């Protein structure tokens, strides 16, 4: 049974070991990064090797093909984070061992969050993940904005998670259980409820979603992300925008699909779809509209990642198997393009010490390679073929249109119009790089970064025209949730 949590246990141990070894014997950033990277790679291989068997015997956590998928997503985004944390302007060499320990723990917490089968174990793993995130966001010790971001994040997080905890306790009060499946059963048994109790229950569901919405930066808990993204160290922020959202959406899928998906459920039948749909509309519209006037690229990407969370929630609002598959497919695309975009920003800001759009003027002539790749990531985020992001969005829209009915068509049309709006602010960056002129000094950066974003760029194009392998990968991990 313990064997099924082997990746988490080993990662935890490896993190402590790395902290210990490198605290005793301080080494250069390169060495710490290489060791951490290779260790994590080995752990990832172990976790997919077949030694780790799914296990559903525990009632608090259960690993399955479904959770394995999220394990891999988090592993992969961590690997990229390691490469880009190395020699980052924002993370000092002295604190590298502690920083890497935090990243290892990040995996453990995020993975348990998806595996949770009980509201309380979900809450606890989510809180651990939050704590790690607060610390990592303030890891850029030399800059006040990093500390400010950490504090803001912690305050917002405390509010969101206390709301969630209240929801959980109320749910326990009405159903007498904290297990997803038991709650589902209880909700089904309650049958027809009187109006006030019904409304109260909807509110409670929203409260429980609150914590997850905070992690996903979804309306109404999205306001933290621009400040935190702008202040935090870029490599970690990139991780936050992908892995943290992946864990939250994984947990949300389980909560929605196990607790509220049953058609016979008098309380939630149809309402969950409506709630998620409305929240998706608000999230993507707000995210996109607010991104339009941002001049700081990290803030811009923060709003764009809010919008992308909105697209995913939109697909999830169909509450069926196709939509879960679509969200997972989209996560793969989102990982590639969003990490790529953040790393392009980091490469520029590591040199100019600023993320303002002025730094990108004329980038196409200073470093055509970087400008071209950034353009690929941005267009992929917009959802323009032949890039990966288009296929991802195609799946999302297909998932809700598949469901049929006027509401879903309206949702899809709002969604596509939103993605047309998003072109405007992504194209502003492309315009800065290609259409405007800046200073002409050539711009160079180290080769590890060059090949890493090159690799992401190749994926963003390749999977845009040939996405069968991705589909097979997602489908392989697509079984029942437990």
């Amino acid at each position, binding site marked *: 049974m313990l064997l099924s949590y082997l990746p988490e246990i080993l990662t935890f141990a490896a993190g402590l070991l790395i902290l210990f070894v490198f605290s005793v014997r301080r080494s250069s950033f390169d060495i710490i990064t290489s060791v951490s990277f290779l260790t994590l790679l080995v752990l990832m291989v172990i976790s997919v090797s077949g030694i780790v068997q799914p296990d559903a015997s525990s009632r608090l956590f259960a690993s399955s093909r479904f959770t394995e998928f999220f394990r891999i997503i988090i592993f992969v985004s961590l690997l990229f984070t390691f490469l880009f944390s190395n020699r980052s302007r924002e993370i000092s060499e002295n604190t590298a061992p502690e920083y890497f320990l935090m990243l290892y723990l990040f995996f453990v917490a995020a993975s348990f969050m998806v595996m949770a089968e009980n509201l309380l174990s979900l809450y606890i793993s989510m809180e651990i993940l939050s704590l790690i995130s607060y610390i990592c966001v303030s890891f850029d010790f030399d800059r006040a904005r990093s500390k400010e971001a950490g504090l803001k994040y912690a305050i917002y997080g405390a509010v969101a998670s206390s709301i969630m905890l209240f929801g959980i306790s109320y749910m326990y009060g009405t159903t007498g259980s904290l297990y997803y499946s038991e709650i589902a059963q209880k909700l089904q048994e309650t049958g027809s409820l009187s109006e006030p109790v019904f409304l109260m229950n909807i509110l409670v569901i929203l409260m429980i979603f609150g914590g997850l919405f905070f992690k996903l930066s979804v309306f109404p808990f999205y306001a933290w992300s621009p400040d935190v993204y702008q202040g935090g160290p870029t490599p970690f922020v990139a991780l936050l925008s992908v892995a943290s959202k992946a864990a939250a959406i994984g947990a949300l899928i389980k909560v929605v699909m196990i607790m509220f998906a049953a058609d016979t459920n008098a309380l939630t039948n149809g309402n969950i779809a409506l709630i998620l749909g409305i929240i998706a509309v608000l999230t993507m519209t707000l995210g996109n509209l607010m991104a339009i006037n941002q001049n700081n690229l990290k803030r811009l990407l923060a709003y764009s990642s809010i919008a992308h969370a909105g697209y995913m929630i939109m697909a999830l609002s169909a509450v069926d198997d196709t939509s879960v598959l679509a969200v997972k497919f989209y996560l793969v695309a989102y990982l590639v393009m969003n990490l790529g975009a953040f790393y392009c920003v980091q490469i520029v800001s590591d040199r100019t010490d600023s993320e303002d759009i002025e730094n990108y003027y004329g980038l196409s002539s200073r470093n055509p390679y970087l400008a071209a790749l950034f353009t690929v990531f941005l267009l992929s985020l917009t959802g323009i073929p032949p890039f990966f992001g288009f296929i991802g969005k195609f799946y999302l829209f297909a998932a809700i249109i598949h469901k049929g009915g006027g509401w879903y068509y309206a949702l899809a049309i709002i969604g596509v119009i939103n993605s047309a709006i998003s*072109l405007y602010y992504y194209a502003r960056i492309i315009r800065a790089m290609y259409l405007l002129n800046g200073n002409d000094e050539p711009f160079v950066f180290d080769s590890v970064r060059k090949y890493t974003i090159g690799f992401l760029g190749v994926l963003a194009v390749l999977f845009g025209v040939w996405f069968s392998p991705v589909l097979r990968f997602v489908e392989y991990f697509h079984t029942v949730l437990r």
Partner: protein
Amino acid sequence: MDFILSHILSLMTFLPLVGMVIVALIPSRYPQYIRYFSVLVSGLVFLLSLVMYAYFDRDSTDLQFVEHFVWIRGFNIEYFMGVDGLNVSLVILTALISLIACIASLGIEKKVKGYFAMFLLLMTGMMGTFVALDLFLFYIFWEVMLLPMYFLIGIWGGPRKEYAAIKFFLYTLFGSVLMLVGIIALYYNSEPTTLVDGTAASHTFNIMKLTTENDFSSKAPLFGISFAKLVFVLFFIGFAIKIPMFPFHTWLPDAHVEAPTPISVILAGILLKMGIYGILRINYQILPEATQWAAPVVAVFGVINIVYAAFVCMAQEDLKKLIAYSSVSHMGFSLLAMSSFSEPGISGAVLQLFTHGVISPMLFLIAGVIYDRAHHRDINKFGGLAHIMPEYSAFTGLAFMASLGLPGLAGFIAEVLCFIGAFSAFKLMTVIAATSVVITAAYYLWTMQRVFLGPKNPRYEGYPDLNLRERFTLYPLALIIVILGVYPMIILDIINPTIFRLINTLR
């Protein structure tokens, strides 16, 4: 030869893409190689299109030069290309105009490598859009065109290039994302069928199968509107923006005025044709009932396009803007004529795509010639150019006459067919539209008078007449305009059989 014939559409589509990769590999210190190599590639594509024309079976109504295999099984997406009467003339037009525009691009001096790389990518997108018969594939090619166009206008354009480029990009994307919803909706409402390799598929993107095996008029309504009508509207907005149809036409004057001459040529000659083509290929064939329902409204918009844009032309002082609005007006003829569902109407609409696709590039080239010399295009500031540049003036005269529909030149036949067709269904509207012929004649002749006639303007003394590059672009177009004016059957022969079949399905 067999290989070429059986893969001719893929070759024509992807040769430019290969060319783009090679251009990217040529070091930028050899701009001359990049230029001539690009001309070579577009020349090859044009040659292939001539081969296709020669081997095209004129009596058949079936798809020809078909390439068909399963591309992505997970979503039943097929790689399906083919030509019939509806798109064969447009494929030839695309190859021809691309070559002409490529020759006209030889004068580009700024960032030559990037320019030709984008140009060749644009060619792939355009060619693919016309030959793709799988909705998913069609959509990909349709969108692939946007990015190179954005850069070509945005980097190599005029003073307000950035504004024009993003406006073009946003307008078109807005339309195409609605189309995407339509595509997915058609997919999920299609009947189970088999893919080309015989495997069963629950749904399909195959345009031919969607046409023959599905009846969308009986699907459950959404928001109280019938499903077919809703999907029709989604597609129609996407295509109407591209045509461009009033009130979605405002991107066009900006894009045209700011774009460099060869890109205006491509825009007017090829991109505008995609809207009408898309409506005929997708809306007419897949959603015939909804098309019948929408026809009167489409016709009204067609008339607005024709008359409104013609009046706007009268007020223009910028030569390029005038030509841009005249394009809007001329695309209205196609819209009006195809709503009539009559044989001459649809024939005329498709022929109009071809003739306008030859005439308007010539007009834009002419505007480019004078802009290269005078660095402005203000009609009122010219005068007496006929004394200084006689050859140029003659070609301008020819192009203006062709565009206003002088008998004996290409534009006339198409317009007459359009009017004959439209009259059978919309008497009053056709009469109103026909008045535009007078307005068109007025603005062209007035422009002629202001630019070329009158006393010699000393400011323009000593301007050289057409150079070799300009002759290479203008002579072939002029020749085609005259030949088509005398013998339009060259094009009508290949388009008519399919169009007659199409009309029978509509009735």
